[in-house]
């Protein structure tokens, strides 16, 4: 089927499997890699293997990290009294950009969604409850996405956590409804953090 030499078409096929990469982009990337030096190609392939080999989930907060516990969990300058709960690791970046938050994080790796077969058991909740039982945590800030699934997840977590005597707040949704935290700019995110309300 292919007009390319076998190694090129193999590379194109692999690149096409990545999100947002179509046939044309895959070709362009493949030729760009082909034109570069051997060292460039080695650096790229090593970088790809390194993320697979060295990046793990932090056993405390489920963030992606090259150390366990991750640098958020071991940083003595970060308060152990608040935990901000997010859906995905990249949500941490949006919140960190504000430089306003100095507590801990917890990544659920998803939100409740029966349609997609995601219930409480599919979220990474067990180690969150374990962290709460250690007794240092005074407030849980729920920063799941402001869409239907994120809201339901927030309500469910509040029902789960409040009986443990921990204050549960939800970031204020100055964020456009139905959007993802990933796309929130710093100013909106700052306001969302400041204006959080108790659940």
């Amino acid at each position, binding site marked *: 089927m292919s007009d390319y030499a076998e190694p090129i078409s193999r590379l194109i096929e692999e690149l096409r499997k990545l999100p947002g990469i179509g046939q044309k982009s895959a070709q362009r990337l493949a030729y760009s890699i082909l034109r570069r030096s051997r060292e460039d190609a080695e650096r790229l392939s090593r970088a790809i293997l390194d993320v697979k080999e060295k990046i793990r989930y932090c056993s405390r907060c489920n963030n992606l990290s090259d150390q366990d516990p991750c640098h958020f969990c071991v940083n003595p300058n970060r308060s152990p009294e608040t935990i901000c709960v997010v859906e995905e690791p990249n949500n941490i970046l949006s919140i960190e950009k504000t430089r306003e938050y100095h507590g801990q994080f917890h990544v659920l790796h998803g939100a409740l969604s*029966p349609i997609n077969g995601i*219930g409480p058991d599919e979220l990474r909740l067990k180690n969150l409850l374990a962290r709460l039982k250690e007794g240092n945590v005074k407030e849980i800030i729920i920063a799941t996405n402001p*869409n*239907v*699934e994120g809201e*339901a997840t927030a309500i*469910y977590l509040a*029902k789960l956590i409040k009986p443990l005597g921990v204050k549960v707040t939800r970031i204020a949704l100055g964020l456009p*409804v139905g959007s993802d935290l990933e796309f929130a700019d710093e100013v909106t995110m700052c306001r969302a953090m400041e204006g959080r309300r108790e659940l």
Partner: protein
Amino acid sequence: MLFGRNAQGKTNVLEAIYILAYGKSFRTVVARDCIQHGEKLCGVEGVVEKQSVERDLGVAISSREKKLMLHRKSVGWAEFVGNLHVAAFTSEHLGVIRGGPGERRAFLDRAMVTVCPGHIARLAAYTRALRQRNKLLSFYQRQDRRVDDSLIEAWEEKLIVEGTQILRDRARYVEALKGRLPDKLFGDDTLTLQYISNAALEPGDGEEIEWEFRERLSEKRTADLRSGFTSVGPHRDDLKLFLNGKPLAEFGSAGEQRSSLLSLYFAQMEAHKEVHGFYPVFMVDDVEAELDSERMKRFLGHLAQRTQVFLTTARETSVAEIAAGVRRYEVRSGTIAPAPAEGDADLD
């Protein structure tokens, strides 16, 4: 007035105007169905003049995406919609009277788009939460697992928050329509409306609705778990229509049903005007199929003083007899040409 034989493209003109207003067709929900068979894309462009301000509107639809344009720049839905308001009257809309509750809810929701900002977004959120709760119910129905009430409640909470507002807004809108039904436009008949909800028997203020809706949802939870379906909420509501005290769908004649529906549309236009200060553009597809000449005369007289009207008809002459001064265009094989006015060949 657009006249011409069938299948020459008259309805397409109305459809194009409608697309410019709402970014979608009244004939299909799937945007790419608007594209002619064998073609890759379709587009509509138009200039809307409102209080002597002109706006360039455009919609481009391909199989992959839809682009909404204002002054030739791509804009979001919120910015696009609201530049042109249209009320379309086609035979399909008789479903509002003869069809199921779903069609009447759709009528209300469509009409509320322009007077109740946020309604569509709330409906979308409500529907999403409803699908999620139903999926969870059917999961418990199939699997013999301990029911986690707080999990069901998490989805109910979203239903209650959005549903309360939806219910209250719809009930208020029906009240607004009631007060604006045209008086004696089609004889001495009196049309009355009633919004019915199984979530709140008498939709009062928001807090009461919320309280009642919450109660009913938890009352019905066991039954819902058995059926795998959410039985309470504004997704089950209905708008009841009565003519002279009798249910219109069962007791009204075809003519009475059509004029009642028109009255409903007129009330919708008045409600629109109250909010925006002007009437929406009115369109009637195949006007002769919809109205006998007596009703049409009253109808055109009522509208002509208020807004621009687009009509399509297969029989050119009858409308011309009823309404003088109508600008007439002939539609033939997809092209539109102005037709000379009756007895005045020099015009234009």
